[in-house]
């Protein structure tokens, strides 16, 4: 028998009450391998105004390219200190920030490898269902052959790739732009 999936509703403006207990802006536990990165950015609405009531969730593989999930049957090591989940709200000026490790590559469709990336969900008042996007890493030669990036109009791919910041090595900038010429690429997962 087939049931109809429950329909989505907005998180509204008051999600902090329900979500704060699981805020995680540092994904790195004890004895975790991999290159540490800080990802920070801002969320902007259609007027270019910062969004103070958005929340991002992060899902990623560990430095070996292994997800902590039973469906990942790759022969790669898990690390007890790395679960791969993060959750960060934006501040009053629309800023979010989290610390993690750069994941290893994971398999993609047709046996092609995917470039290292983070899977991101974006929730906020005004969004009746979540937005799904990805963060890729700058100066990674694997981006050029990534099977998902290659589905995106070349002129828009840069919205998915974090940028190095001149001021702080190890800190990458990645913004979520909801509308306009610089609009971030969001993916259709049938939500």
């Amino acid at each position, binding site marked *: 028998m087939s049931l109809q999936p429950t329909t989505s509703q907005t998180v509204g403006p*008051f999600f902090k009450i329900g979500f704060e207990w699981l805020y995680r802006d540092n994904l790195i536990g004890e004895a975790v391998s991999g290159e540490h990165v800080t990802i920070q950015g801002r969320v902007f609405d259609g007027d270019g105004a910062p969004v103070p009531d958005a929340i991002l969730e992060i899902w990623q593989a560990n430095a070996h390219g292994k997800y902590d999930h039973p469906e990942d049957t790759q022969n790669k090591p898990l690390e007890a200190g790395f679960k791969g989940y993060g959750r960060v709200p934006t501040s009053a000026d629309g800023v979010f920030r989290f610390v993690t490790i750069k994941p290893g590559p994971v398999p993609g469709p047709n046996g092609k490898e995917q470039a290292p990336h983070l*899977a991101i969900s974006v929730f906020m008042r005004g969004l009746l269902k979540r*937005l799904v996007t990805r963060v890729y890493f700058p100066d990674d030669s694997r981006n050029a052959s990534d099977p998902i990036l290659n589905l995106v109009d070349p002129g828009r791919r840069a919205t998915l790739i974090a940028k190095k910041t001149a001021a702080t090595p190890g800190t990458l900038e990645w913004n979520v732009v909801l509308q306009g010429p610089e609009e971030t690429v969001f993916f259709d997962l049938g939500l």
Partner: protein
Amino acid sequence: MKRVAPYRAPHPGTQPNLLHPPYVSSIKRAPTKPLVAIPYTLSEVTGPSFDPGIVTPKASDLTRAHSGAPLGERIIVSGRVLDENSRPIPNTVIEIWQANAAGRYRHDIDQHNAPLDPNFTGSGQAVTDAAGRYRFVTIRPGEYPWRNHYNAWRAAHIHFSIFGPAFSTRLVTQMYFPGDPLMPFDPIFNCTADEKTRNRLISTFDWETTMPEHALGYRFDLILRGRDATPMEGK
């Protein structure tokens, strides 16, 4: 690595469009460019899991978070989490949050001049059992005004957030109460075009879980996306 089985696409009208102008906040926040379709990969069919110990039994009783009892009508909200193939989803985290009985959230930006209740925070968590069941004890939230349009009021609701087994099953929704006269006028409740699907956001009054001389029971089942049991065969 074997092929990744996709999750099913929703039937037309059973999930909201991102742009729903009667909900004014969607106008400047819904993306304007088409979403880019991608195949399911390991990144989308895996997802976070949590040590069940992260949620204490006390976390599912919102009436016991403080030294005194909150004001309002005590209720029990329970149900099951299943996928669309009717399989129970065990060991998954559910988060809820809500206004107090007067229609006020314990949140800095809630400016409604209804009183806060020192004995009510309005947040809870539960983990589903082996049969996908969950149960919360709380108080019935009040309706409250908002500024979407003139004399706008939200129907009484409880926010639900659930993870399920994968990144692709993550769901945030709202539960409503039967008979609430505000539902026909609430643009958030009405954002889903399909009426039957929308009406499944309304909990049902439930004698089975109603406790004598204690609390009324409401039942609310959550259905997460599922996958085709066999690869699609031209149907």
